[in-house]
């Protein structure tokens, strides 16, 4: 492993200046569960590592019924998942974030880091997408917001410009009748990467209930996590039935652009896309009909 400089930034400005000065040869460290492994294994080389854990804004974890959830990019999963579970909010996000590594990794890994690592198979990104999460990005030109589905641009590639970093994620409040979930398929029950993953959210209204909003997202079946708009759109206006969920799964299967690799085959991933979307929708629906506390 090559030697590199380390900076623990104490303010957003200090981090932005340090990152901008290195013109792409610097990398942000939050939990480090991806970055440190990549550096050790020679898969990534940097001159400077900027630790954002001492930046107050990156450690915010707040919930407000009007504005929703704000998760700083340095908040470890264990803290966020504990916060969500204690408050009984965003169970679909908690389900996804709880899958990131074992107990020790949960103590370090962050939602922001999982997003910025931009793995096509990241477990939390489809969940962020179906929750309509916004990425709060800061940089030399100030702050900007980007929908989660637009953040990843390729495997390991993001929309961040030189000098920019992800400061926090904001999720809108879960409206009445809303439910979301994320499921993945792994051959092993733990210590594995999704062969395919699916996030789904829906919102019910009326009696008998109809779906008035829905989102479907896939992981590990394309170069980036995928928002499948047509699958979500197919659900709107329909009753929450197995047939409707299966039709959304069929559309998701068609939208998948999977490959063969050491973790699975393209045919398997395509097939799983449909199965997992239906399963995610079934749980999302249960949550929606129970008022989101499941």
């Amino acid at each position: 492993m090559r030697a590199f400089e380390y900076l623990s930034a104490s303010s957003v400005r200090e981090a932005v200046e340090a990152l901008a000065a290195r013109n792409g040869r610097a990398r942000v460290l939050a939990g480090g569960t991806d970055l440190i492994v990549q550096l050790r294994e020679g898969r990534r080389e940097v001159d400077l590592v900027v630790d954002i854990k001492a930046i107050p804004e990156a450690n915010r974890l707040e919930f407000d019924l009007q504005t929703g959830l704000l998760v700083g990019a340095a908040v470890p999963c264990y803290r966020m998942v504990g916060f969500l579970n204690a408050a009984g909010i965003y169970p679909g996000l908690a389900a996804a974030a709880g899958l990131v590594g074992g107990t020790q990794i949960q103590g370090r890994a962050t939602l922001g880091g999982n997003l910025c690592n931009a793995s096509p198979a990241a477990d939390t990104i489809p969940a962020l997408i179906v929750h309509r999460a916004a990425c709060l990005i800061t940089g030399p030109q100030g702050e900007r917001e980007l929908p989660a589905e637009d953040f990843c641009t390729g495997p390991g590639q993001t929309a961040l410009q030189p000098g920019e970093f992800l400061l926090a994620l904001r999720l809108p409040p879960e409206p009445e009748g809303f439910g979301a979930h994320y499921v993945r398929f792994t051959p092993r029950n733990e210590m594995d990467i999704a062969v395919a993953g699916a996030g789904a959210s829906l919102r019910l209204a009326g009696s008998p209930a109809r779906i008035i909003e829905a989102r479907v997202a896939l992981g590990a079946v394309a170069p980036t996590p995928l928002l499948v708009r047509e699958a979500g759109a197919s659900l709107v206006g329909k009753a929450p039935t197995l047939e409707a969920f299966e039709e959304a799964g069929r559309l998701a299967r068609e939208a998948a652009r999977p490959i063969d690799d050491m973790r699975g085959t393209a045919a398997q991933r395509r097939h799983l896309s449909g199965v997992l979307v239906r399963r995610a929708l079934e749980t999302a629906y249960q949550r929606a009909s129970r008022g989101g506390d499941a």
Partner: protein
Amino acid sequence: MNEKETYRVIGTRPLRPDGADKVTGRALYGADLRLPGMLYGAVLRSPHAHARILSIDTSAAEALPGVKAVVTAADLPDVEAKVASLGEGSVNTRYQSWNILAREKALYYGHAVAVVAAASVHIAQEAVKLIRVNYEVLPPVLDVLQAMQADAPILLRDLRTDELGEKGSALTNVAAHHQTKKGDVERGFQEAAVTVEREFHTATVHQGYIEPQNATALYNQDGRITIWCSTQGSFGVRDQLKDILDVPVAQIKVVPMEIGGGFGGKNNVYLEPLAALLSKKSGHKPVRLTMNHADVLSATGPTSGSVIRVKMGARKDGRITAAQAWLAYEAGAFPGSPVTSGMGVIFGPYAIENVLLDGYDVVVNKPPAAAYRAPGGTNAAFAAEVVIDELAEKLGMDPLDLRLLNAAKEGDRKADGVAYGRIGCVEVLEAARNHPHYRAPLPGKFRGRGVAAGSWGNYGGKSSASASVNSDGSVNLVEGSVDIGGSRASISMQLAETLQIPVESIRPQVADTDTVGYTEGTYGSRTTFATGWAVYELGRRLIGLLCERAAQLWDVEPGQVTYEGGVFSCGGQRLSFAELAGKMDETGGAVVASVSVQPETWGPAFAAHIVDVEVDPETGKVDILRYTAVQDVGKAVHPAYVEGQIQGGVAQGVGWGLSEGYYYDAQGRLANASLLDYRMPTSLDLPAIETVIVEVPNPGHPYGVRGVGEVPIVPPPAAIANAIYRAVGVRLTTLPMSPARVLEALGKA
């Protein structure tokens, strides 16, 4: 005589002597070693599966500050081709040298090409990047059937087929064709009412030990070489080094450190010769080399992927009339797959009149195969036991009844002509059939129960041990057997049994090659059998010496002194073991003894496994609901460690069956060289594995011991395949039976 009741130590479950050090982290492994002035190494590995090495330029690496030595194949002696025995297999010294460092060709992704020693491992890693190798990339051959084609790219410039003992003339990738024949299979198939014939494919899999290979060497100015390493056999390391480095054996001392798993994969040397050469070249500094898991998976011994065709026929009454198998095993880059041992296992549990076995040892562009727990046996049993399951189905017979009807007994001859002695095959199958698991209902959809049997020949080999009696009645035991699976305990227990003293009185120590007599490695399920036999002899010798001391004290003839129940006596005189030990000073000083044995009467082991699975037909995932492993162990010296061996073998067999396998890309690069993507089962993927110990004592051992460590890995993939068939109605014939393969078999993907 009911021997069970006469044992005082054997059959109990004492704490292991190395337990405290292991659970506190105090036990010393190779990576814990720190020597003054130590240098650290890094290895340059081939990024190509098959390439001619046109040139290697190490000048930039040598010029990097902190670099102390760079070694390439040019630094290794060009040794003669000669075949050396290595326990369960044999190695050709020349090929082994070519494997240590690629000489003319890199033959697999990860093949070591050069190695650097530097003041820190980081400098060494940077220096490796500065080495310029000019490769002529050649097409790789990764598939055993492709490698056997006449027009396949040729790996080795001197390989000609050994065709049943005759050398062929053409260059080839087929190193050998072996054949075993008994009776007349054509006639046997004519007598059959039903026949089943299928082709099976199994993936290349790794032993999966968690401690990576490591070696530290000090090549002294006077020519003496000391090696500290993680190995199953310190004397085997010494033998290999002597040949590869071409130095006298007396110059080499091998110190075995604690070992974090081996499963057959830590018999061969990889880093040891490199560390020795770097030490010599760097000015006689100690040099440590350590692999990471990517190195371990891409460059140390996997076991062979294989293609196996099996045909079996049976009469209406279930009697198997003929069995034929064609087995092609990947050897990796150099000859030496375990195909012949697979041929020994394939129909091992059965007495069959007519058998024909053809086995092929085939080189491909993968790391050379090393032994892995019952080498070659799991592949073979997978094929045979699935075919037997199908025979039972066609005959309308219970699959265990069919196996029992054909089970091998004492006096039955295997296809290779060797007659079985007293074996427990029938007892094991009966115990499985009578087990509550086999009779329990299995309600629910997509669930099925499968069974499979397995055999393993076991081994004896050379073992030495010495001991000295302490004045308090304790005994220091020095053995040469590396302790992988609790053998300090099982060996100490056999000595304690012989000496009729508590096992806590035995202080075992695993010694280096300068300290103890020649001892083969801990492989072939031989250690508790053979080293156990050595300490049995050692105990008897110590008792004889102590009888002489008692005779001296009592002024009688040694033959008049008896030893029973831990007490020496003659007439009315009595002294306990400890009391007599306290009188050593007045009877001539220390009581010490050394023994070396080479017992030949090892007994084969048999196993029968029962497994319940549930298949998710939407994802292809197979969950194991319940697992029972029945095994004849001869005599369980330490039942807890016997159970542990059985459970460990099952766990590895489940991985082999469901999720493990090398994944090479089209260029022959190993894409899953990590413990994340090489999917061994975790504790969450396995149920509690129930074990049933059957004890049919081996008459060829003083305590009835049979090897227990290997046979439990033989039946699992077959048992699981048979269970999947009963759950969802499809026969899986390719390993691993991954979710993707199950979906494919179900027509879903």
